[in-house]
């Protein structure tokens, strides 16, 4: 099962490499990973998605918690949560394709953020599923390049992950 794990950690050199190293060392896989400082610059917030059964996820969270620089670990997928991913797609856009791409972008509430005579760059945000759906809708053949941010997420309601 796909899980979204959110980690609050010290914003220090080497902290990220310990998280990534842990996954490699214990044969866990990382599907997406995002990390950036929080409103408190001494802290970083890291979100990663991975797949595994309950047992594996329990081990992952325990081992993450053991890392000295990790302050909190939450499995967002355990409860209700909001997740977003941002994607930039460069799409072939010539002739009739131009209108078609624009129309598809509108359906997905995506924005065209750069335009040339033969290509559009489209920005899509939403759940990872929605981004996948956009790629299918555009059709792989017209896609020139894709970059995705990886998932970020927060739990719904008043619950917060903080110090």
């Amino acid at each position, binding site marked *: 099962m796909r899980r979204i794990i959110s980690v609050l950690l010290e914003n220090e050199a080497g902290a990220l490499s310990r998280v990534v190293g842990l996954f490699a060392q214990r044969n866990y896989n990382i599907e997406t990973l995002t990390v950036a400082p929080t409103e408190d610059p001494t802290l970083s917030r890291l979100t990663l998605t991975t797949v595994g059964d309950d047992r594996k996820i329990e*081990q992952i969270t325990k081992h993450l918690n053991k890392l*000295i*620089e990790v302050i909190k670990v939450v499995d967002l997928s355990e409860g209700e949560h909001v997740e977003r991913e941002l994607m930039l797609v460069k799409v072939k856009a010539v002739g009739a394709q131009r209108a078609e791409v624009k129309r598809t972008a509108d359906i997905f509430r995506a924005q065209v953020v750069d335009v040339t005579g033969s290509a559009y760059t489209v920005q899509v945000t939403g759940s990872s599923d929605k981004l996948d759906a956009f790629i299918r809708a555009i059709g792989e053949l017209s896609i020139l390049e894709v970059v995705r941010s990886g998932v970020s997420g927060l739990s719904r309601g008043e619950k917060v992950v903080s110090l």
Partner: protein
Amino acid sequence: MNQPNLKKETIVERLSGGDMLIRALQDEGVDFIFGYPGGAALHIYDAIFKQQRVQHILVRHEQAATHMADGYARATGRPGVALVTSGPGATNAITGIATAFMDSIPMIVISGQVANDLIGTDSFQETDMVGISRPVVKHSFMVKSAAEIPSVVKKAFYIATTGRPGPVVIDVPKDTTDPSVLFDYVYPETVKMRSYSPATRGHSGQIRKAVDLLLAAKRPVVYAGGGVIQGEACEVLTELTRFLDFPITNTLMGLGCYPATDPLFLGMLGMHGTFEANMAMHHSDLILAVGARFDDRVTNDPEKFCPGARVIHIDVDPASISKIIEAEVPIVGPAEPVLRDMLALLRERLAAAPDLLDRAAHQQWREQIAGWRRQHGLDHHQLERAVPGVVIKPQAVVQCLYQVTDGEAYVTSDVGQHQMFAAQYYHFDAPRRWINSGGLGTMGFGLPSAMGVKLALPDAVVACVTGEGSIQMNIQELSTCAQYGLAVKVVNLNNQALGMVKQWQDMQYGGRHSHSTYQDSLPDFLRLVEAYGHVGIRVDEVGDLEPAMREAFSEKLKDRLVFLDVAVDPDEHVYPMAIKGGSMCDMFLSRTEQS
């Protein structure tokens, strides 16, 4: 991370980074550093030269420095300290760091690093020590500026020694130890880290649940590991076990945490555990696991593990619980306070209702176990029955060592058959006496760890049970022993082969001994140790064994390193041995018998 509180003292010393580092070690109460110098560490070495309180032991290979620090830590419970230079010094230390990591041994490894302005330029003797060591440390620090040295040292010791202990690396770029730049030296009194707070007590609700299970058990067994020793919980575990009259088994790492000569003790469990310990585990209805981690060398196939047993698991590391075997009652916390709370509650419950324990069932259970022991228990009388002229059994040598040292020695070992024979046949009645690399299985550990023990406890009798294969992995340390007069006794069970490898080849590869023998290339160990200035004794005949052993441990040779080279049966196997893929009760009992 939060800065540790600073001492509010008035007189502040001005020290260089190098001096601060050594001064901080003094303030931590460090008495020995095991190390080897080199360019990046020279400022630190100069700081060592200028003081008396910390004694530096010059090894002959950095791996040995880490094993010495490790042996020191295992024998005393205090963190061992090693110091190496950058590059090859640092990489040579990795095996020892990994060894300590696998067995949760508190250790501080200080590595010199090239100066900050050279880092990343592939400069001479530069290696990314923090990167290379990352998977085998509890934590590591890269000193960014000299000013942070005292607080980094404080944190390093705190992390290494609390929670589940482990090695911590401090990588020190040369410019941060520059003797010409001075700083105010203040050693922090306390340390508080918002991201690190190990458990200090067990959850009382969980302890209550555990007590219910303990009281309801008909066929209980206590399964205790190295965490009991690390957690200083041997006394309370012994008290609790005796109070309940429960049979107890120890892991390879746990030997000594419960007195081996006590009738409730079943011996070691696992791959080469006793028949009765493995049978008791398999047929139990309750396992109280304390400071043990259901290692694959214990459980055999986890799917077939102890089918009728409910499991209580006490461990200070939550990640060890339900990793391999699901625990019905997990208790996260240090073994000592958890067991103490448990014992108090048991006493209270039994005082109110003494019949809560099914003593009749327990009696029957102990008799069943005694039956297993009579059937296939280890033969502890191989020495007495040894026949003159017949090749010496390695087990008999360990028995002889046990008798001659009155069971009081600190015994270190290497890895192989000799290690298993030592674990099976030397009865450890006290913790910290049995010192071996259980988790990583590091050949070359025995001699240097014995040296660390001897330095820590100069009056103790320290024996290293080794094999002719393992001893050659750190034999250069005989020179260090000569320099510091370290009178350890080396008992070499010389079977002229990588015996454990050969045993597997006998059992699983049709007896094809691929590269497990040396074709007459073994050194003459007597001349070798004499060349280093020590005493060598060779034993070929069983009649000479005991006199030679007595001589090695005699008053006359008290201050000498003695190397006892004993020719033992090259064809001996270690039994019992777990049958791969089976349950705990599936064992080879000899070349011809299975359970």
